[in-house]
């Protein structure tokens, strides 16, 4: 029997997440001959809307519907899926905060291999799926081989596969609720309490045209001043990468990245930022990007338009002075 691939669909407010259609492409890249099923968990009208949306992209859509699943965590969803997923197949899950809760433990419960954070697939040969991952914050990549003889749970990096926009399927929605909940809701060792929304900061960087963004290369809190000075002379706002917020040198609302803000500037200056995928995931709209970094191998140079290999502690003050001089 042909391999089956199950894709876990994230959704919010009745609409599928961007990763849903990326998984269509990722599934085809895993095995073009596999039958692919979208798995959608939630409740009520929102869930139905997402299932109908997915039926245009997947031949089969599994729906698991229960009021208690509207804020379900990875613990509950894992327990339900383990009840209904046939063993020995491939499960694709987006590598983000929900997937990181759900997927590693699911591989244990399904007795399947676990292949995390894949950026590309290179085919199946001799019962092994070959794939590409990144290590060391994207500074190097690796080819990995995964034994799929007992199936595999695989997380796929968001944004690594192009969304499949064809939407030409007339997929069948199958209600798996009864089967998943035959033994009732799984006992919850974890209970949802609330979502605390991000606090608004003094500057809304999501609205900025020009961002001067600072990373670990700034080395010390007092050096942030050189970034502020540059931003002031060119009329930009200051944003940053995660280590700066972790060190509490700038407020969280200035953090660009998947766990921070998503920005759409016209010009983005990455100063002393190595360019992890989590950071780049927060930069949308293809801005003109300038990277200044003393490490010529920093991944940021692969995505920037213009780069300068220099220590920002020397280069940025010189740049600020030069611009001041020109402005007179």
């Amino acid at each position: 029997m042909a391999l089956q691939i199950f894709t876990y669909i994230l959704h919010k407010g009745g609409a599928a997440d961007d990763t849903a259609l990326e998984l269509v492409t990722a599934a085809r890249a895993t095995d073009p001959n596999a039958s692919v099923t979208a798995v959608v968990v939630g409740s009520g009208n929102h869930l139905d809307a997402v299932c109908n949306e997915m039926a245009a992209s997947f031949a089969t859509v599994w729906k698991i519907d229960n009021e208690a699943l509207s804020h379900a965590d990875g613990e509950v969803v894992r327990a339900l899926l383990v009840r209904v997923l046939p063993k020995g197949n491939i499960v694709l899950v987006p590598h983000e905060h929900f997937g990181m809760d759900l997927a590693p433990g699911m591989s244990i419960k399904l007795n399947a291999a676990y292949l995390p954070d894949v950026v590309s697939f290179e085919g199946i040969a001799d019962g092994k799926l070959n794939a590409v991952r990144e290590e060391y914050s994207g500074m190097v990549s690796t080819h990995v081989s995964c034994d799929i003889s007992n199936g595999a749970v695989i997380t796929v990096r968001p944004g690594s596969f192009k969304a499949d926009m064809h939407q030409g399927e007339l997929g069948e929605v199958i209600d798996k609720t009864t089967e998943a909940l035959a033994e009732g809701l799984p006992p919850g060792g974890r209970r949802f309490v609330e979502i605390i929304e991000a606090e608004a900061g003094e500057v809304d960087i999501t609205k900025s045209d020009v961002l001067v963004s600072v990373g670990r290369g700034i080395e010390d809190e007092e050096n942030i001043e050189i970034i502020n000075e540059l931003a002031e002379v060119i009329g930009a706002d200051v944003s940053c990468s995660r280590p700066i917020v972790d060190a509490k040198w700038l407020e969280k609302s200035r953090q660009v990245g998947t766990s921070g803000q998503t920005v759409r500037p016209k010009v983005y200056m990455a100063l002393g930022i190595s360019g992890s995928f989590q950071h780049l995931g927060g930069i949308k709209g293809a801005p003109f990007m300038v990277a200044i970094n003393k490490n010529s191998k920093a991944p940021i140079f692969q995505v920037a338009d213009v780069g300068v290999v220099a220590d920002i502690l020397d280069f940025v003050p010189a740049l600020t002075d030069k611009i001041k001089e020109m402005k007179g």
Partner: protein
Amino acid sequence: MEILVCVKRVPDTAENEIEVNSDGSDIERDDLVYSVNEWDNYAVEEAIQIRDKVGGSVTVVSIGDEEAEEVLRREMAMGADKGIHLSDPAFEGSDGRGIAGILKAEVEKNNYDLILTGVQADDGAGQVGGMLAAMMDWPFASLVDFVEVVDDKTLKVGREIAGGNQEINEIDLPCVLSIQTGINEPRYVGIRGIRKVSSIEIPVHGALDLGIAPESVGRMGAKVKRIDYFVPDLGKGAEILEGNSDEILEKLIEVLKSKGGIK
């Protein structure tokens, strides 16, 4: 509360340029500066703070060759009470599941209430904590950026989700949490602190001590194997400005102006 924190010795990406060696079999390891995985260091600090509030002890555990001991001592100098070193040639080449299985064998020798890991390490996989929890049938929460002890059976935890938002959960003990950077401010460890703990004995446990069949872990037992390292060709990349520093500044200002970057 009895807390176990899993730590790993890794090349420090803030201190090194990571490069692939000539035949792609490994990264260039000569002259690499190693340190404790950054996420793990936050996890140890969090464990120490919890212990200082509610009592109990903090044990740090690491899997690796003899050099793993240096990170255990460093974390003990921070304030962890005990160290356990899991070391055996049979462990080499383990995949995430192998590592989680080795840790499970050690965890079962004691009565821990809470196990902390970092969210991820050098391979960026973020897998061991969730696997260990599933093997133990304990609840798990990933990306934890806030922990409050409610009582001796429950924690309140915050998880970092998208867009700077935070998801608050209650979770029953015993449980496994993966700790995100920024949750606290890890304390500084000086050379004197490390000297103070230099004579504390750190037990070393191998496969036999843990009752692990050698072929079930290591490269033999791994379902996921790394074939090689490489640097991907991602097209042209950035145009690197060259020349003397004045020329570079002028070129950069020129291009910034043309793109509307200088108002």
